[in-house]
Each structure stands twice: as C-alpha cells, then as structure tokens.
C-alpha cells in the first residue's frame, strides 16, 4: 500500500529523519510512536507530499508522491498536527470546500458529507463558524476532513490531542472502526493510545526506526525473560537454592526487605514459561511462606523508554 524507502530529511545540519524504511499493508492500523521531536510529523508530511524528502522515495499504491502527486494524494486523507481549518467558514462550508478539493462527484457530495459529519458527531455544529468551536470540535472537523472521500489511507497526526477523556474514547472507537475499509496511520507520543488502537507499532527515535512489531510481540521481545517479584519469609540460602532448582529459572536476586522478616526476590525466567505454581509448591515444601507474588509483564511504556533511551545513550558517545 505505502512503501517508504530510505527516507531522509535534513534541515541544514540537523537530520530530522534518518534513512527510514518501512512498508504499510492494507487494512491495519499503524502507530508511529516516539518522543517529541523524533521526526513523526516530518515523516507524515513527507508521506503526504506536503514537504519533499532530501533523499529516498515514498510510493502510495504504486504512485510516487513526487512524480505522480495527484494520483498519490488522491489515496490519502490527512489530518496534520494542527487541523488545517479556515476560521472564517462554517463547518458545512468547510466540508463542502474539502469535498471539492478532493474532487468528490457532485451527486455523492451531499450524502457523503452528512455521513462523515455523523461519524465524528459534528452534525449539530454544521452551521457554526469554525472560529467559535472548541479545540475538541476543531479536531473533529479536521478528522472529518481527513475521512471525507473515504481515501484508502488515512493519516492522522496526534488525532486525540486536546480532546476530553470521553471524546478520546469516541475517537479511538471511530479510528478502530475505520480499519474495516481503510488503512490508518496515526502518530502519538501517548503509549496507551497506541497500544489500545494499533495493530502494528513503529517506534521512532531521532529520526530512525528503532523497532517495529505488533504491540504484543514488542512486549514479549523486550521482556526477554518474564519476571516474578516475590516476598518470602525464611532462610536466604534455602530459598535461593530451591528457586534455582525450578526448571526455566535463569537468575535470582535477593534483598532484605527493610523492617520485615521477608526477602524481596526477583526471579527472571525464560520466555513463555509460567513458574508461579512451581514456586508456590517449592516454597510450601520448604516451609518458606510466600507473602506476596507478582508476575510482572513489561508494558509498552517500558519498551518505549528502553528503546528511545538506548538511542540517546548511543548518540551521546
């Protein structure tokens, strides 16, 4: 659907996007994740043809964005970071203008505009001037503009910024429902959003792609080993000895928990092995009562921090 090859964007000496390559397939929701200034918006602007790349190519449905811009742009609906709204127009006027720009046939125009306005729930606002709308509604009008014409690819740059929590959930549901007919790319620096909505995550840091996989796979990958945190009462050496005896256990750290009789223990295991029952029986046999047991799953947040911080560390060398 979309193929990005070796994309580079330089602003003077600063490299905003650094040899980025990825492919986007039909019917999925892709999430661009990265800290502020990672190059998410720049990449999206290049995919949509708003700015040109210094090197590399973007092709949409086989059409190069710079060589066949009109054909390529026809496949894309774009909501930039700041919704491109004309404040002197009413919502309906704006939607009509957007429909004309996208060359939607006259006979379909009216029904399509109504449909899209219903989808993002701005029908009540259709005769209001955009100038007088709140941030949340402006964002929705921008979103409606991106969906209008039902382009094959919908690109949303931080679509939920400025919305209240209820609106965020509504918009997320809307984005999920778009998946049936469209390919969606959204960018965000909010991790929960990406893990809630996206089928596939591309993590970008300093203009480079540092990881790309499904959210589940990413958690599994970064976890490497699953961890279990325990609080156990008993003899330190006995506990260590028996825990290491459990198959699948790789490493153990034991610290005295201040103010109690128990030991804080972190057990790391190999992937996809659940040792919680084994731990329970082993400790019970040896009369070492388990006071607390917690299986720790690595969240996307930790992966994100890990990946982007590693990058920081590398570049500071």
């Amino acid at each position, binding site marked *: 659907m979309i193929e990005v090859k070796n994309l580079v964007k330089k602003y003077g000496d600063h490299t905003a996007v650094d040899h980025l390559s990825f492919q986007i397939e039909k019917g999925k929701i892709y999430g661009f994740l990265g800290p502020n200034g990672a190059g998410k918006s720049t990449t999206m602007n290049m995919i949509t043809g*708003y*700015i040109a790349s210094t090197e590399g190519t973007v092709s949409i449905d086989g059409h190069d964005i710079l060589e066949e811009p*009109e054909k390529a742009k026809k496949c894309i609906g774009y909501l930039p970071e*700041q919704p*491109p709204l004309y404040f*002197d*127009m009413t919502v309906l006027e704006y939607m009509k203008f957007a429909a004309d720009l996208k060359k939607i046939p006259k006979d379909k125009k009216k029904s399509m505009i109504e449909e899209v306005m219903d989808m993002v729930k701005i029908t009540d606002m259709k005769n209001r001037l955009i100038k007088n709308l709140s941030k949340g509604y402006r964002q929705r009008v921008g979103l409606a503009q991106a969906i209008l014409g039902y382009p094959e690819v919908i690109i949303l740059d931080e679509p939920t910024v400025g919305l209240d929590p209820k609106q965020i959930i509504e918009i997320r549901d809307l984005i999920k429902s778009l998946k049936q007919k469209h390919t969606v790319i959204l960018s965000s620096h909010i991790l929960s959003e990406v893990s809630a909505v996206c089928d596939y995550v591309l993590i970008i840091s300093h203009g480079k792609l540092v990881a790309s996989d499904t959210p589940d796979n990413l958690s599994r990958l970064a976890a490497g080993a699953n961890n279990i945190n325990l609080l156990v009462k008993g003899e330190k050496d006995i506990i260590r000895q028996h825990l290491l005896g459990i198959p699948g256990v790789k490493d153990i750290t034991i610290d005295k928990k201040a103010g109690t009789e128990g030991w804080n223990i972190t057990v790391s295991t190999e992937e996809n092995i659940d040792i919680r029952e084994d731990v329970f029986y082993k400790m019970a046999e040896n009369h070492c009562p388990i006071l607390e047991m917690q299986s720790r799953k690595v969240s996307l947040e930790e992966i994100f921090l890990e990946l982007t911080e590693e990058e920081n560390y590398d570049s500071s060398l």
Partner: protein
Amino acid sequence: MTAVYKRELRSYLTSMTGYLFIFFILLLTGIYFSAYQLDIAYPKFEYTLSAMTFVFLICVPILTMRTLAEERKQKTDQLLLTSPVSVGKIIMGKYLALVTVFAVPMAIICFYPLVMSKFGDISFGTAYTAVLGFFLLGCANLAIGVFISSLTESQVIAAVLTFVLLFAFFMMNGISSFFSEGSLSTCITFGLLILAVSIIIYSMIKNFVISALVCVIGEVILAAVYMINSSFFAGGIQKVLQIFNLSGHFDNFANGIFDINGIVYYLSVIAVCVFLTVQSIVKRRWN
C-alpha cells in the same frame, strides 16, 4: 481550481478586506470624477483614470497580503498542498478570485462614460481603452502582490513589501533619472550587478567555484561587449528599469491608444508573477 476560487471569493466578500478594496477604488474614482468631469467638465474620462493609478499602491497590498501568507501561518496550506490539486491550479484559483473582486469596481467604473454621454459628446473608444488599460494595470499589480505574499508568512511584512515594491515601480521614471546614461557608468553598474548576483548564488548554493565562474564569465562578456561596441550600453540602465515601469505602460492607454504592446506587457507580468509564485511555493517544500 474552482473550489479554491469559490472559497477565496467567498472569504473576500464575507470579510472587510474585499469591501474595503472596492470601496477605496470607487471612492477615489468618485473624487477624481467630480473634480475633473463634474467641476471642470473635462470630457476625457481617461484623464481621471490616469490621475488615480496610485490607488493600487494602497489597495493592492490590503487585498493580497493574506492570500498566501495567511495560509502558511494558519497551516491551512497543508490541506491545499496535500489534496489532489496541483500548485499551479491553487495559485490560479486564488489569483482569479482577486481579479474577480477587482472586476466589481471596474464594472461600476464602466458606467461613468455612459453617465457622461448624457451631458455631451464623449469618445467611448478612448474612454473604454483607458478602462481596459486600468484593469490590466490593476491585474498586474495584484499578481505582484500575490507573489510577495507567497514569500513570507507574516501579513504585515507581505503588505509592507508589496507597497515598497509597487511604490518603487510607480516612481520608476524618477528612479531611472538618478542613473547616468553614459556607457562607462552603465557598464560598471552592470558589472556590480553581476557581482551581486554571484554573491547571492554563493549564499544559496554554497559552492565557491560555480559562483566565481558565473561572476568571471559575466564580467568578461560584459567587458568584451564594452570593448567592441561601447555605445551598446548607452542608456542601458534606463531601458532595464523601464521593464518595471508598470504605470508607465498605462500612459498609452490613457492617451486613448489601444496598445497591443502594453497588453502583452501586462499579461507577461501576470504570467511571470504567477509562475514565480508557484515556484516559491514548490521550492518551500524542499527547504
């Protein structure tokens, strides 16, 4: 293109700027009309028009300043430039909307000679030739305004720059008289110009060899031409500056001459400005 055209036109006619522009042109026409035609009973309407060419210095910047500067500031250009419409069509749509707004006072101005004919003999031919010339002059000024507006994202800078440029063009006769018509001084001025151009090229591409080459080749050709035929340069600066003398080309129309040269001149100014505007928008994507 029609989408952009319709939007722009609506925006001019729902905000103050469009009406302000129309009001100002009509106000000045009214003042000059009452002074020349009603007071002195002078039968030539073209005289009125030629006296008020300065109106564009004030009106055009007001109308054109926001054309592209505002789009860039509000980031609405992201919508236009990512939609399946070519940059050329967007600019043409915007420009034609401006011309349409300008056509409103021009249509009203067309009635003036008719009113005058009620009170005596007037030559419609010369009067309407002047109206046509005035319209073309205005369109050329608007095109320059659009181009300036594409260079910046600040409306104020766009307005001031447009005013300065149009004022310089308006005063071109005076400016060109500052320069000597002698061959040697002309040649030296051109030499300095070539140097300036190569410095600009260097600041843009940061390549010393190419810009030095441009400079040296230019100066050598200049010197050679001067050696062979020094009279070639006589009055050269004036000839070059005359290209920018927009209102000067209106003189023939004001004298009732249907000047094909003038029409071609104004149309070329418009074409060049629209082309430069498109280039400046396209170029911005590469920065």
